């Protein structure tokens, strides 16, 4: 029971706090009057996450990310959320009653589909008991633990250039560590944050004109994408960018209807900025989406012959662009400040190496929809639901019609998704990874679900085919997500393992050896000791040791030494900078000359402290 409470309350507090902060910030924008309460609350949650994480970022840059600061900020937000909930209780009750009536009025096929989606999402919690993806104990969870443990945001030693990426999700995770979550428990955050994201996807579909059926299908397409499933509990934080990005799309659509949309566009810009800081690749894949959605209503007015001339057209575009840009810069600027403080360069960046050769890249580009749906490329980490591929092309023939294409929101969303995808294909053609452009790809679910809805209304056969397709895809998705390593496991086993007795290395699979190796160092280290990390993984080191581990410039000579390196060359590098008491080595990823540790030079003493599989830990002493 205590364990359940320890696991639940920090996440609950963070969620309530995100909601409250968002409600507080959006109170003056007038957005509430233009949408239903549940959609407004979901947008507020996404917005609040961005604001709260930015506040944590500034606190951590100043070294003030203490328990008192985190608890105060979170409690204030949570109180606002609870007060707002109490004040809107009758409205929430009416929303629930409406939802229940809609459920009762729905046909059997749609009841089954909706129920299957909800049950599958609940089952998705088992991802928290699945394997970690190597990136998370290497960087994402590691930097969060380091910041949470030390209270100060610095570059993660060994990943110094990579620390230039947006770290908002990591700061939310750091706050969870600060509130007492231990081990890899905070990896539940992406799954929890996906609840409002699903509501936002549903709301976006509704705002595009889809009915309840089509909107449920959009949610079905999202949860049956293994690219989403594999990020629910793997420790990676890419999913947290989807919420603000989808919220930005919803707000953009609302701005089309708003008579004075400056405040609305400002909110859309802020949400876009938060999404881009949560996931920097959205700068390429999502900004074109926002640009298309901003230009779309202006195109509609041009079609109606409203702007009299170029000057008026320019004024319209300028009026839309200014609040959007200001909002984006306000949200994005803290990342530049962070880079300036921790790396000394506001515009520091981590270049994305091409994943594949030119020939393979050409093949990827030519088979893009197939590669995104069925691909098994290196680093792809999941694919998009085949339901999107099955139904999206049909949207060309079976779509709800309207008077003019500029007033068709589904067409607008499709055009925006195409623009974002093409931008990514042109600028990063070899980086085939749905998680980099996840929100852009999920936008294709809107026309796909619309086509499915139209077809199911036209012929009863398509309702049956749709039901069968959704159920089969939901049944196959776990096997698809588990094909390389266990992602979704038994739900009951996950819950019992989370609530059961814990060890330091609980939830560390498949990195148990790295955990034990790090624990060995933690037990022996004294203040001021440093670790040479010839491994990717460092999450289980004590936060102080992580902060004092070898920097990129210190490990670089060992990497450059390469396969031709000799033991004497290896120890010459060490002797040039003999500041490390411990060396942790992963033979599967880092080369060390054979015999280097077994027969060191006479003035160097090496004690093997731990060895299991490819992982070893050594204590090194340099003689005088």
């Amino acid at each position, binding site marked *: 029971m205590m364990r359940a409470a320890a696991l639940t309350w920090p996440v609950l507090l963070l969620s309530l706090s995100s909601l409250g902060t968002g409600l507080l910030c959006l109170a003056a924008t007038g957005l509430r009057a233009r949408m239903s309460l549940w959609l407004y609350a979901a947008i507020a949650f996404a917005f609040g996450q961005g604001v709260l994480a930015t506040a944590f970022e500034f606190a951590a840059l100043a070294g003030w990310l203490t328990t008192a600061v985190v608890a105060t900020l979170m409690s204030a937000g949570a109180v606002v959320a609870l007060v707002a909930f109490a004040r809107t209780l009758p409205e929430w009750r009416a929303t629930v009653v409406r939802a229940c009536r809609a459920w009762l009025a729905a046909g059997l096929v749609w009841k089954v589909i909706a129920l299957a989606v909800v049950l599958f999402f609940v089952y998705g919690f088992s991802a928290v008991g699945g394997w970690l993806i190597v990136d998370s104990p290497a960087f994402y969870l590691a930097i969060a633990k380091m910041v949470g443990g030390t209270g100060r945001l610095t570059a993660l030693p060994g990943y110094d250039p990579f620390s230039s990426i947006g770290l908002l999700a990591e700061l939310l995770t750091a706050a969870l560590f600060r509130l007492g979550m231990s081990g890899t428990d905070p990896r539940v955050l992406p799954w929890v944050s996906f609840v409002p994201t699903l509501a936002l996807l549903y709301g976006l579909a509704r705002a595009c004109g889809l009915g309840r059926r089509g909107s449920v299908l959009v949610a079905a397409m999202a949860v049956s994408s293994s690219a989403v499933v594999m990020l629910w509990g793997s420790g990676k934080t890419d999913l947290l960018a989807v919420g603000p990005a989808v919220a930005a799309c919803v707000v953009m659509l609302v701005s089309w209807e708003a008579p004075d949309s400056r405040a609305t566009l400002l909110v859309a810009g802020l949400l876009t900025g938060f999404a881009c800081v949560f996931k920097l690749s959205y700068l390429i894949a999502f900004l074109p989406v926002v640009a298309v959605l901003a230009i779309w209503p202006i195109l509609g007015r041009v079609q109606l012959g409203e702007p009299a001339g170029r000057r008026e057209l320019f004024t319209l575009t300028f009026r839309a662009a200014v609040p959007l840009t200001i909002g984006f810069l306000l949200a994005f600027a803290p990342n530049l400040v962070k880079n300036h403080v921790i790396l000394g360069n506001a515009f520091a960046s981590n270049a994305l190496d091409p994943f594949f050769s030119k020939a393979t890249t050409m093949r990827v580009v030519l088979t893009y929809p197939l590669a995104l749906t069925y691909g*098994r490329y290196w680093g792809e980490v999941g694919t998009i639901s085949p339901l999107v591929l099955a139904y999206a092309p049909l949207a060309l023939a079976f779509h*709800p019609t309207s008077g003019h294409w500029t007033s068709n929101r589904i067409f607008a969303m499709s055009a925006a998704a195409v623009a974002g995808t093409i931008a990514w294909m042109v600028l990063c053609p070899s980086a085939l990874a749905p998680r980099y452009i996840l929100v852009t790809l999920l936008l294709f679910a809107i026309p796909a679900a619309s086509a499915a809805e139209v077809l199911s209304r036209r012929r009863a056969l398509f309702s049956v*085919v749709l039901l069968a397709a959704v159920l089969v895809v939901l049944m196959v998705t776990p096997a698809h997500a588990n094909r390389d390593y266990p992602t979704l496991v038994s739900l009951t086993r996950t819950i019992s393992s989370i609530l059961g007795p814990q060890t330091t290395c609980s939830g560390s699979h498949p990195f148990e050896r790295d955990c034990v190796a790090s624990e060995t160092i933690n037990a022996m280290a004294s203040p001021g000791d440093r670790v040479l990390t010839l491994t990717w993984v460092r999450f289980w080191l004590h936060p102080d040791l992580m902060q004092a581990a070898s920097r990129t410039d210190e490990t670089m000579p060992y990497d450059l030494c390469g396969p031709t390196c000799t033991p004497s060359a290896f120890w010459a590098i060490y002797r040039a900078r003999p500041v490390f008491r411990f060396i942790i080595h992963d033979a599967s990823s880092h080369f060390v000359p054979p015999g280097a540790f077994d027969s060191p030079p006479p003035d160097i003493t090496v004690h093997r402290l731990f060895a299991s599989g490819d992982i070893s830990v050594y204590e090194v002493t340099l003689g005088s």
Partner: protein
Amino acid sequence: MTSFSFAVQSICLVVLTALLVYTLALMRTGRLNAHVTVRWVLAEVAAIGAVLLWGRLPVIAYTSTLGDRELLVVLAVLFFGFIAFLMLDSLQRISAQSAQVRRLTQELALLREQVGHSGSGARTEVAAEVGLPPMPERTRPGPLATVLIAVWIIACVATLAVESQDGLPRWVMALLTARYKQ
């Protein structure tokens, strides 16, 4: 006046007064149109007047000369004519209103089409929630298209199922797989 005819007259007055009150109540609660109410009120007042002036109307002198069966036929014909007139009047009003509703629906659809907004059942739900109008659906796939679409959807889903079990042909997998820097 005998006690029997006085009792019948009293019952008729009570029933007709109750009917008059009910008619006025229907009008006040908005369930009966004012134009229709006027006709019914006039008819009921006339009936009450007839009952009050029972013995002084010339028709009574005439009816007293009729036999029981003849009187019954006369009353039935008069009653039928009166009810038929009221029903025809109501039906005429319903017909006029139906025509008006049809015309308004067509005008609304034309207006929606003109402003470029759409109107299917789905978007009617949306209008309540996010304030957007819905879209009409036009396309209905033919038999061949239905089969082809169903085959396409099943193929997309089945490919994932087969791929998850490593069941795709080797050349297909080679097309969809690559190692780092390959």
